[in-house]
């Protein structure tokens, strides 16, 4: 049970500042996802909370107490690594019991807690196996189990699903979410996958080049992105951006953002802009139509899977409702409507 506070957190390697001040108050039991492209500093941010990287300036507080100078073992956290970081020479049982043994817990309690975690994660048949005798998904579960048995204040996840295949990733994503809900332990989760961020997070931090561009609940971020970066990063396929060369009505140097699902196709001249159909991708439930505007910019429209997509080279008009169009200034920041 813990709150975590990051207060103007900065990190410098040599002379290069790579985290430019991140602030967030995380409430007890909240699931926070830090999402961003590779190299944006999201893993460094997590490692600063873990105590694996020093804090250059600013403060990390767990339960209100400053932990900047504390060693990782004194922060009562548990971390799941991207490569699982299991102890290869220990059995699954010993891997999970390691932290408890070091803490000097009685043998009976260790056995009981490991058994509980093993039951929760369906690892009971594998307790005596070595990590190399397990599949990727099972190793992932052991890493989770090792985190759970310690009953930490905070869970830290560093891209825990990126080494799994797509199907297993979806399944584990769900399990992680249910487990965190059940245990009610505050979690920080780093990923580059915006789908994971959308599905897991209570709130997410969208990072770009060492800056937290936006912090908010997934749907709020999706509906109201604060910058072009956030608008383009969250949502798949990404948001379309149109400049004033395609839409003469726009104020100069601003750009209009519109999500693919809000673009509708009409007859040429009937919409807000005209475009030529390039190609379509039928995904079953939906079809993505890629089009080119008069000025060469590309636009994607999402239409129903049953709709017959326009043939290549067809001239079309593009329409969208006003309340779904977002205006972004030359600095990439959102210009509020009205």
């Amino acid at each position, binding site marked *: 049970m813990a709150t975590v506070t990051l207060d103007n957190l900065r990190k410098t390697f040599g002379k290069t500042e790579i985290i430019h001040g991140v602030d967030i108050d995380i409430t007890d039991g909240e699931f926070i996802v830090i999402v961003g492209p590779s190299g944006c500093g999201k893993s460094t941010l997590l490692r600063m909370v*873990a105590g*694996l990287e020093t804090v250059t300036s600013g403060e990390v507080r767990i339960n209100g107490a400053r932990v900047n100078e504390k*060693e990782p073992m004194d922060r009562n956290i548990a971390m799941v690594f991207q490569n699982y*970081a299991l102890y290869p020479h220990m059995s699954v049982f010993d891997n999970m019991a390691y932290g408890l043994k070091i803490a000097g817990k009685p043998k009976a309690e260790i056995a009981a807690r490991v058994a509980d975690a093993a039951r929760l994660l369906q690892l009971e048949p594998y307790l005596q196996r070595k990590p190399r005798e397990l599949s990727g998904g099972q190793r992932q579960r052991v890493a989770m189990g090792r985190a759970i048995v310690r009953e930490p204040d905070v869970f830290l996840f560093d891209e825990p699903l990126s080494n799994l295949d797509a199907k297993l990733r979806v399944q584990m994503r769900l399990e992680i979410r249910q487990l965190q809900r059940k245990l009610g332990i505050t979690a920080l989760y780093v990923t580059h996958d915006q789908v994971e961020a959308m599905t897991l997070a209570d709130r997410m931090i969208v990072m770009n080049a060492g800056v937290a561009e936006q912090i908010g609940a997934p749907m709020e971020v999706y509906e109201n992105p604060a910058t072009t970066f956030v608008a383009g990063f969250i949502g798949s396929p990404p948001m379309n951006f149109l400049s004033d060369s395609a839409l003469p009505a726009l104020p100069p140097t601003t750009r209009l953002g519109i999500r693919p699902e809000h673009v509708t196709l009409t007859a040429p001249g009937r919409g807000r802009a005209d475009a030529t159909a390039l190609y379509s991708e039928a995904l079953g439930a939906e079809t993505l139509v890629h089009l080119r505007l008069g000025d060469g910019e590309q636009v994607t429209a999402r239409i129903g899977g049953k709709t017959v997509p326009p043939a290549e080279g067809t001239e079309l008009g593009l329409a969208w409702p006003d309340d779904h169009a977002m205006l972004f200034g030359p600095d990439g920041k959102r210009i509020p409507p009205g």
Partner: protein
Amino acid sequence: MEKRVTFKGWFLPLLLVLPQAIVSAVFFFYPAGQAVWQSMFIPDPFGLKSQFVGLGNFEYLLGNSYYRASFVTTAIFSTLVTVVSMGVALYLALLADRLIKGSGTYRTLLIWPYAVAPAIAGVLWLFMFNTRVGVVAWYLGVLGYDWNHVLNGTEAMGLVVVASSWGRISYNFLFFLAGLQAIPKSVIEAAAIDGAHFWTRFRTIVWPLLSPTTFFLLVVNIVYAFFETFGVIHTITAGGPQQATTILVYKVFSDGFVGQDLGSSAAQSVILLIVVSALTIVQFKFVERRVHY
């Protein structure tokens, strides 16, 4: 899945094995065979004829108190050389592994002594500890310690152990450092988060994961201490004082080439061969069981 090459006939595979077979035959099997053959003879003082004595040389050796003393000396010497060279190397490797800046320089400097030939290393240490002109011996004198490895057997043993270990530390360091760097950093970090401080991490994670390297070095270093330290002992103490540093391989040389007792020397080589084979078998049989691969 094992990859296998299948040959049609016998000619090509035999041809491919031939170079190695020839080298082994000429430089190992033939001399070893000669040693076994010679160990059953006693040559006359002029080397004109030999007399067959069967296992007489072995009988004599095993009843000889000097030879038995040499066994004890060898055991002490090789244990000390192995422990000292591996211990110091592991300590240095642990320090170098934690370095962030300038680790390349340290590494290079630490590897240099390996390039020094054993005999040269022996002379180097001999000069430093020479009872008349040695720098270290002189400073020890200033501090009130009268160093004299020429007369004191314990000091002589200490000196040959240090001189033999010195160059070996570089070699062991290299392997230990590589072994340490092969341990994934995240495993160490996971242990740190699990609450293990440096020493606990070393005992429960690093040491077990390093055990293949340690085992390999153990075998290699014992063989080194048995054979390759000859040059160091020859230059520093010549087996003295009072045979205090006469290890088995040195006794093979001194009895055979100085004492001209070739039959006994050959018998000693055979015994040495048996001892080293036995040691290696024991190491692989018993120590390897505890090694985590």
